[in-house]
């Protein structure tokens, strides 16, 4: 090692939001500037880490200089970097949106006071999770993430939000305990929690199967894969709009990320039947979530069910098990995160504007909130998977992977899921044009909220045009390279 002072960007992306959270908690009156500066700082640090990873390859950093068997290691490769970037882009958008949302003239001050520290803690947990190199540290970050997320849902107040938050907390703790029991078994069997060491040592045995079963179950519960999605719609729909956005865009993806890492690195010998099962559940989620979304009366509930459907697509990559499939799933994750952020922001604007989010009473919002409806429609284009959006690229990659793996029938699911999404997007947009029978009182939506939603939606479309660049990132220190059996 040379003694050139090389800034450890990986540590910075965790320490910065933690410091930001403490500062926002100590000086609630200054929370908005503090929060925004922290958000920009995190984006800069992620960019710095990205530069480092692109220039020098995957990075490993031993916190406190202790090293792998005893200490905590941070590890950044292309996959972690991509996840950090998704969090940075969506996180910056959500931070800007929250300035308008929580600081409107009629908003309650104490909500803003609690929002900023919790959101910064959540961001710190997310970043730490994406950089963790051992399965126990993943457990700790997963719990931190869950606790912050639950508190943010409860912020909305009211019976629905509190019940949703409570159910979410119980499910989240249950999932974590399943995962922790799996960690205990793996540590007992192989004497390490480090992912790299485990990857070398793990061999198929009954203990490993048990550990895998427990960990996969726990993570599926947290990722809300059908039929374990029952907790998601109420928690996501009843939260304040920026919180719904960050839950759907980022929090559910974190447990998917852990599942992906474990599946590829520690359990590469997992049998095909289990992968097919995950694929089938994913397909069921796409169809069930799509149908449920179509019949929802309230906009935020509809968008929450669409998250259930979109999460299903991620699992279609498991039975395909080729590099293109994994890339497609990750691109789906990326584009869904951005598009869903835009969509929940648009829903938040509509809810604020009319005081309700009943779809049939949207009452010509297209004339009164043109930017918001444009944002909703553009995000809808990406979620349906029409070109040139990010969602299109993701579905295209998944389709190609399905054909290469000689399992073309998954392609049918992609098409059906797209049609269902199209149906509900057009339903909402249709009601946005029609006049409602009962006139409603309306309030002016702050311009920053409208513009943030639009910018996020445009980013979701642009992801389709600039696809090669994020895809190239995935090849750095990629865990996918190992199993090239396309």
């Amino acid at each position, binding site marked *: 090692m040379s003694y050139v002072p090389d800034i450890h960007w990986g540590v910075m992306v965790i320490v910065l939001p933690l410091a930001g959270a403490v500062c926002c908690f100590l000086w609630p009156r200054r929370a908005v500037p503090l929060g925004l500066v922290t958000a920009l700082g995190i984006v800069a640090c992620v960019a710095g880490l990205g530069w480092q990873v692109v220039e020098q390859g995957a990075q490993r950093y031993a916190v406190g200089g202790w090293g792998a068997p005893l200490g905590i290691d941070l590890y950044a490769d292309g996959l972690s970097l991509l996840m950090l970037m998704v969090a940075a882009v969506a996180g910056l958008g959500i931070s800007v949106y929250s300035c308008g949302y929580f600081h409107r003239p009629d908003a309650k001050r104490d909500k803003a006071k609690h929002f900023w520290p919790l959101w910064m803690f959540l961001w710190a947990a997310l970043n730490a999770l994406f950089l963790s190199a051992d399965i126990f540290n993943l457990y*700790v970050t997963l719990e931190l993430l869950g606790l912050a997320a639950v508190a943010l849902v409860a912020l909305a107040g009211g019976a*629905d939000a*509190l*019940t949703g938050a*409570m159910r979410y907390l119980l499910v989240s703790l*249950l999932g974590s*305990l399943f995962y*922790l029991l799996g960690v*205990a078994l793996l*540590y007992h069997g192989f004497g390490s929690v480090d992912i790299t060491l485990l990857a070398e040592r793990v061999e198929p045995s009954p203990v490993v199967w048990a550990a895998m079963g427990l960990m996969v179950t726990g993570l599926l519960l947290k990722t809300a894969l059908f039929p374990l999605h029952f907790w998601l719609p109420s928690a996501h729909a009843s939260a304040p709009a920026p919180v719904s956005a960050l839950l759907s865009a980022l929090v559910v993806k974190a447990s998917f990320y852990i599942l992906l890492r474990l599946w590829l690195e520690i359990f590469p010998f997992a049998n095909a039947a289990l992968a097919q099962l995950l694929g089938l559940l994913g397909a069921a989620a796409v169809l069930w979530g799509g149908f449920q979304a179509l019949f929802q009366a309230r906009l935020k509930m509809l968008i929450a069910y669409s998250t259930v459907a979109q999460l299903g697509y991620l699992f279609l990559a498991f039975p395909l098990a080729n590099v293109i499939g994994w890339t497609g799933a990750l691109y789906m994750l990326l584009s869904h995160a951005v598009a869903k952020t835009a969509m929940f922001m648009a829903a938040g604007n509509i809810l604020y504007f009319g005081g309700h989010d009943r779809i049939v009473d949207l009452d010509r919002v297209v004339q009164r909130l043109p930017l918001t409806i444009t944002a909703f429609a553009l995000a809808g284009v990406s979620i349906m998977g029409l070109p040139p959006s990010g969602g299109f690229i993701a579905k295209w990659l998944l389709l190609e992977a399905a054909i290469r793996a000689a399992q073309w029938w998954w392609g049918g699911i992609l098409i059906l899921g797209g049609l269902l999404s199209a149906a509900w997007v057009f339903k909402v947009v249709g009601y946005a044009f029609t006049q409602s029978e009962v006139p409603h009182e309306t309030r002016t939506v702050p311009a920053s909220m409208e513009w943030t939603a639009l910018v996020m939606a445009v980013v979701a479309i642009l992801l389709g045009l600039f696809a090669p660049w994020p895809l190239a990132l995935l090849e750095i220190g990629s865990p996918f390279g190992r199993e090239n059996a396309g």
Partner: protein
Amino acid sequence: MSSAFLYALVGVGLFTLGLYALIVHTHLLRKILAINVMASGVFLVLVALAARTQGATPDPVPHAMVITGIVVAVSATALALALMLRVRAETGRAELAEESQE
């Protein structure tokens, strides 16, 4: 059968018992207690399996994990209890009612 293995089995038993209670009971306090019993089960498994060979000094790493786990469990329980009180104040019952429409 070594005593460590027996303890680990008891841990798995507690985990299962807690899971059962979590599913069947409706009162939130019972659910929170059930989660705590499950967590204790996992901790017992971790501690028990730390003694790899009889008589030798146990592996300290799982103990460190348990301490971290207890910290997490305490904070989670605190949050859960606070939420339970709020749910009760809002709905009048400490249970997970179905969603009200609107």
